[in-house]
């Protein structure tokens, strides 16, 4: 962990709308938006439900379990802070509840990553203010 001043990777732009997700990460649970009218789950945060256009929304805790939908490995650093990590994988996780989230796998050599692999959430503190949602293999 580092302070915001020394952390070199991109940090999320936390605002009033998406803050509950980041608070959830800090509290060790995965929170996504749920539409109060049609119940559709969504992430990243948005003001209106794209399914029914309701503005009424709550944040709900989901299991944090899912599977790798697909992935790739970056061999080029588009962000300077990721340069020391090259080559680094990024996974697209499909949560069991539906939403898909780009993230990273912890403790997993990249030649072992497979589509369909079961994963569960882990929380990695990046700075005093930001905890990232990552995943590990769910054996």
């Amino acid at each position, binding site marked *: 962990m580092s302070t915001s001043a020394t952390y070199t990777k991109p940090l999320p732009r936390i605002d009033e709308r998406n803050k509950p997700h980041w608070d959830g990460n800090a509290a060790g649970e995965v929170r996504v938006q749920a539409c109060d009218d049609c119940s559709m789950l969504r992430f990243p945060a948005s003001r209106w439900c794209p399914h029914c256009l309701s503005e009424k929304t709550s944040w709900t805790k989901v299991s944090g379990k899912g599977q790798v939908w697909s992935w790739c*490995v970056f061999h080029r650093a588009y962000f300077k802070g990721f340069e020391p990590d090259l080559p680094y994988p990024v996974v697209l996780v499909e949560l069991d509840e539906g939403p898909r989230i780009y993230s990273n796998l912890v403790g997993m050599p990249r030649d072992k990553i497979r589509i369909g692999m079961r994963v569960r959430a882990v929380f990695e503190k990046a700075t005093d203010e930001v905890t990232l949602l990552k995943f590990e293999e769910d054996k």
Partner: protein
Amino acid sequence: MSLRNRVAVIGVGTTAAGTMPGNDAYDLGLIAFQRAMADCGIKRTQIDGLIVNRIPDYQRFAEIAGMDPRFALVTPGQGRMSGNSIEIACAAIEAGLAHTIALVYGNNGKSAGDQYGGEGDRYGGGGVGPWFPYGMTSPGAAHAVMFQRHMHLYGTTSRQLAAVSVAFRKHALLNPDAVMKKPITIEDHQNSRFIAEPLHLFDYCLINDGSVALIVTSAERAKDFPKPPVYVRGFGVSTKLKGSSLPPDDFWHAPMQQVAKQTYDMAGVTHDDLDGLMIYDNFSPTVLFTLEGFGFCKQGESGDFVQNGRLELGGELPSNTDGGHLSNSYMQGWALNAEAVRQLRGECGARQIKDAKLIQYMCAAPLVTSIIYGTDPT
């Protein structure tokens, strides 16, 4: 009412792609525009419509070009908008908004140092920003994720994909204006460095400076110009924009099927009638997705389908004969449309498709378009 053969391309102008410092997108656009006017001997006063793309503003462009068109429009600088802009021009002519429209594209991306990944990544209107903390960025990586899934579902391989890059490179060597001048082999593709694995460098398009202009008019007026008109025989458009900050489940197969039906129905032709293809190749996997989506092969079979020179000149479906985005330059679909016109005019020299009469342009993206161009006015 069908728009088949109601509009024709009468003028084409392009610059070679490369590094052209000292030219902004307006300058580059004006160069291609003047070449397109010279190509068909038209005067500015005969043009009453203007659509600019990637050039930031129609007002400034028309001011520089000294024009007061009746109809003027700017479309966003996304490659999928080339086909869309041409289709809008056809509809505008048919609706009487203008009778003759100049479509002008200018791209100074190389000199301007454009990057498609990192903090400046605005793909999907910035919808990808939330993934930056996890290192996810760039359309190339999104396509890598899609190709990884295609590999998983269908057993497609990077080695199969290489056939696309090799074919288009062969074509680029026959195009004096293309950026890439050296042949590549399957092994060269496999040995080229990864950018976003499983995609290699040679799976990526080339960012350069350059410009393209097309002049389109009604079929009736097109007969008054010196070169044989190239008719817009059929076109279609559809989208998959819901959730489009993430890759689609189906590699855009469903919207492509819709566009294919619209386009072939309007044109009154089938796959077998086509002499060549212009396939939007921002990244080589897009070519595979397109061949499946438009029904040239079954879903999942594109890896096999592109083998044995099928997309090469002399093959069954010569594609991207200018070298495409992969080996000519990333002119965001515009150069492919210009190449379709030149092929149908028989102007392509060493890379000419013999007796080309029908060529289809296709773009697989969250907004899918296709245009079939033909020489036959009936």
